[in-house]
């Protein structure tokens, strides 16, 4: 070492969407440090929205100028077709979620004040807010962008943490029912740290096996290293535990209802859409790129996980009486449907591309619908905050028909009724799975869809055919939530009636598959 090292090559233009988001997060921190308190919110809101929109525009522009075929940034990141599609999806979903965050009254006035103390009351009366929420959201979104694009397991681990740590915090910042929110944060944090330790030990074992954490090199090593198969399998299993935890696949789903319920609802929307998309992107990349050559040994396990996830999600959802927990279990069940697509990996390029494009379409469709559903949840309020108990939603169709109709639309889309986006999502994934020979899995999928449809319809019946309570909840729709609802309805209907453009886009993105 003579004190100089060759400079690394970083393709700044390719990484621009991610860099813009991280840069804006850091600017947000500076705003916190230097801008006067009364101005911060007014600066953060447009800054965050413009950043996400700008990053989205850059992503589009990149997709139009041509997709690179080699990994970037010294092999740490692969900006390929699926990654760009996932980036675009995450950015749009994050934009919509931030619109929801912008509306007042979701976040705690002073996180450090003990609930119910005089200090908290003072913070409330002074109208204090935690504007740090915005940079934290941007940090999390930056992590979400890096996670599915990471091309080695180390970058993926760092991205996992960049994505998760701000979310652990944001979970604990709900304005109402603060104890519940803080408990959700503790639970999410401890289980998340536990699962990331598994991810890391799996990475260590794979590193020991292959001599590298680069996904492509691991795949190469599958063919050349012999005699250490048990090591490989245990490593893959542990890595899988870490990734499946983030998706909330059974048997690692225990955190999801608790965390989704306790978190501020806009953050729940962000997690249910953005985190899920990012985690699926990463899961696909690990299992298809690094472990593609090992597919005959992980596919059976993944079958089991998919079946268990769908069944657990659908059946436990029926027993729920809380709207947020019900949506959480619904999200678990949808994770199971998406896992069907992960299993639908075939032997030829064409089959893989069609499975991938089906998954991408499903992620877009589900993401918009779920953000919309949580947006509706924020509008139905009692004196003590959002009305979560299902009985409070009785007769909503008679009191506020529009809200009830919109919510019913989202529920029908979750159920996969034709003319909604959910139908084409499920159809595409099931079709790809049948083509890959996973017909039994599709049968389970259809059955659990039917079970799931039962509880969606039950809520619709409750809203339209029971009498409203005299002291029923009021419906408050702030401007941002209006916009979110409109966007989500538009996306759900348009994707359900004219899915072709997005299907084509997903198909084009999937055509090149992941960069190896």
């Amino acid at each position, binding site marked *: 070492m003579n004190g100089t*090292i060759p400079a690394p090559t*970083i393709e700044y233009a390719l990484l621009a969407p991610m860099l813009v988001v991280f840069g804006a997060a850091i600017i947000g921190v500076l705003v916190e440090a230097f801008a006067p308190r009364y101005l911060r919110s007014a600066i953060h809101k447009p800054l965050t929205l413009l950043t996400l929109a700008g990053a989205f525009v850059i992503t589009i522009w990149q997709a139009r100028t041509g997709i690179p075929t080699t990994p970037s940034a010294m092999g740490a990141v692969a900006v390929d077709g699926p990654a760009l599609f996932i980036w675009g999806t995450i950015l749009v979903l994050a934009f919509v979620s931030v619109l929801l965050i912008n509306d007042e009254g979701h976040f705690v006035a002073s*996180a450090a*004040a*003990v609930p119910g103390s005089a200090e908290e009351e*003072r913070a409330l009366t002074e109208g204090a807010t935690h504007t*740090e929420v915005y940079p934290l959201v941007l940090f999390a979104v930056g992590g979400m962008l890096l996670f599915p694009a990471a091309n080695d397991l180390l970058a993926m681990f760092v991205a996992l943490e960049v994505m998760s740590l701000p979310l652990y915090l944001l979970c604990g910042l709900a304005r109402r029912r603060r104890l519940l929110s803080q408990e959700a944060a503790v639970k999410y944090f401890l289980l998340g740290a536990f699962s990331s330790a598994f991810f890391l030990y799996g990475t260590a074992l794979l590193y020991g096996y292959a001599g590298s954490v680069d996904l492509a090199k691991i795949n190469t090593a599958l063919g050349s290293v012999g005699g250490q198969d048990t*090591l490989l399998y245990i490593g893959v299993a542990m890595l899988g535990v870490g990734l499946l935890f983030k998706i909330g696949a059974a048997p690692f789903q225990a955190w999801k209802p608790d965390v989704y319920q306790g978190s501020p609802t806009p953050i729940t929307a962000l997690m249910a859409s953005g985190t899920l998309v990012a985690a699926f992107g990463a899961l696909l990349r690990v299992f298809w790129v690094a472990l593609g050559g090992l597919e005959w040994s992980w596919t059976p396990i993944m079958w089991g996980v998919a079946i268990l996830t769908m069944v657990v999600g659908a059946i436990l959802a029926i027993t729920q009486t809380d709207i947020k927990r019900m949506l959480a279990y619904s999200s678990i069940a949808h994770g199971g449907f998406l896992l069907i697509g992960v299993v639908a990996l075939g032997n030829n390029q064409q089959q893989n591309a069609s499975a991938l494009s089906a998954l991408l379409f499903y992620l877009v469709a589900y993401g918009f619908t779920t953000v919309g559903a949580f947006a509706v949840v924020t509008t139905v309020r009692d004196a003590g905050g959002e009305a979560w108990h299902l009985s409070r939603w009785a007769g909503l169709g008679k009191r506020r028909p529009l809200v009830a109709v919109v919510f019913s639309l989202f529920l029908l889309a979750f159920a996969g009724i034709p003319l909604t986006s959910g139908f084409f999502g499920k159809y595409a994934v099931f079709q790809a799975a049948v083509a890959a020979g996973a017909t039994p899995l599709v049968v389970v999928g259809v059955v659990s869809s039917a079970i799931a449809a039962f509880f969606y319809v039950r809520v619709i019946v409750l809203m339209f055919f029971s009498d409203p309570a005299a002291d029923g909840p009021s419906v408050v729709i702030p401007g941002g939530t209006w916009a979110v609802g409109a966007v989500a309805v538009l996306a759900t209907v348009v994707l359900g009636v004219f899915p072709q453009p997005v299907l084509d886009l997903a198909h084009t993105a999937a055509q090149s598959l992941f960069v190896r």
Partner: protein
Amino acid sequence: MTSQVPDLWPPSAQEVVFLLLGVVALGSALLVVTTRQLVHAALWLVVCFGALAGGYLVLTAEFVAWVQVLIYVGAIVVLLLFGIMLTRAPIGRSAGLDSGNRVTAATVAVGTAAVLVTVVVQGFATAYTPLEPGGGAAATLGASIFRSWVLPFEALSVLLLAALIGAIVLSRTDIRPANPAADAGGPAAPTTPPHPPDPAPPPADGSGATAGETGSGRVSRDGG
């Protein structure tokens, strides 16, 4: 990568040192998990991390060893001790630190350990790497970090910033010290969730309005 395996006996000096360190690390790790005294758990953690740092030195990973001492022993455990103090856990024995299923846990542990150890031994029984000095020095590692791993490294710096901001959000009590005298009796507010046997007044929230950012806020920031 691997050369011929020398005889197990007599063990080399490195192996003897490692075995001693390994025994210390294992024993202290077991104590962390079993001790009934919270503070002792943290102190045994120091011993365990120290022994591991020694292990890294034997493996010629100098830089990692010193970072281990600095970050784990110097920062993380200290922070954990602060955490124990701030949550005012009892110094000394505390009952009910474990859930009751010790036997089940031990069985599961032995089973899992057996599987993992078998895997490792099976995979690497013949692997032998001669240990010679060099290779893990800061210069080579730095060159590697700033060349192959530069993007994850930058992401890490972002992570640290996010953690810093997050800790400040959660702990900083002086959102606006407008009328510091107004809530002299604040912390005794009856609405705090009931844990009747706890006689002591809350720690930091009372002083928060007047003393500004003391206590937990400061601690968390030092950790970043």
